[in-house]
């Protein structure tokens, strides 16, 4: 079997796990954890294509992955700040209980 296929399948499975977590959990922090897993699965795809694709010395996939890691860190900081702010405001992190757009 082509090793790239195995890595892509692992990344697809990890993406599906993260998507399931983001769509089924009630807790806003667990939804963010699911989104992080999805971002990591995409990173795994980028690195695997960089390793097994032609011209690895051009570093394209590697650079994509490094910038993606940096953007994911920014996303996590802002997302968790929002969760803390909402918890202070509504005294809950249950997404099913957040059904008003008015503050």
């Amino acid at each position, binding site marked *: 079997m082509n090793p790239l296929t195995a890595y892509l399948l692992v990344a697809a499975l990890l993406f599906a796990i993260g*998507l399931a977590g983001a769509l089924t959990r009630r807790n806003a922090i667990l939804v963010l954890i699911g989104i992080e897993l999805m971002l990591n699965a995409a990173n795994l795809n980028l690195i695997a294509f*960089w390793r097994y694709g032609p011209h690895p010395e051009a570093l394209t996939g590697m650079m994509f992955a490094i910038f993606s890691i940096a953007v994911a860190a920014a996303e996590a900081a802002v997302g968790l*700040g929002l969760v803390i702010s909402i918890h202070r405001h509504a005294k809950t992190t249950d997404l*099913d209980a957040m059904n008003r757009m008015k503050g």
Partner: protein
Amino acid sequence: MSFVFFLIAALTLVGGLAAILLKNTVHCALALTVAFAGLAVMFLELDAQFAGFAQILVYIGAVAILVVFAILLTRNAETPKDGIYSRNWFAGLVIAAGVFAVLGWAVVHSTRVLPHETATPTVMVLDIGNALIGRYVLPLEIVALLLTAALIGAVIVAMHEKEAAK
């Protein structure tokens, strides 16, 4: 595929599954750390040393700690009374299974045309640094601006509202 690959893949996937299935939120954060570590080892296995160590530094060192901080600050380590899954969990599960079916089908059916270079790439950290300062300098500056904006934004969003109301 080698035995090591299956071991790392199993560790990563079990960590990811535990991160979204466990009841206690702190346990979820610890399982997430295991999944991140598995991915970092997988990057090292793919000869991407820099990305692997960046993964360890950023995800295990910063994101996992941030998640634990958020869990403790919002005091919801204990299990809620009315279950951990949202009302429409079944639809979410069906969507995730559908996405995996499509992705898996696409990967398995394109195996023949996928690239398969066997030569190990020899990339030094020096090359990555040169690329970051040379060809990718504009994205680097944009990421720097984005990180600054995100940090200031996160602090402002999570700041006490009482001072703003005055």
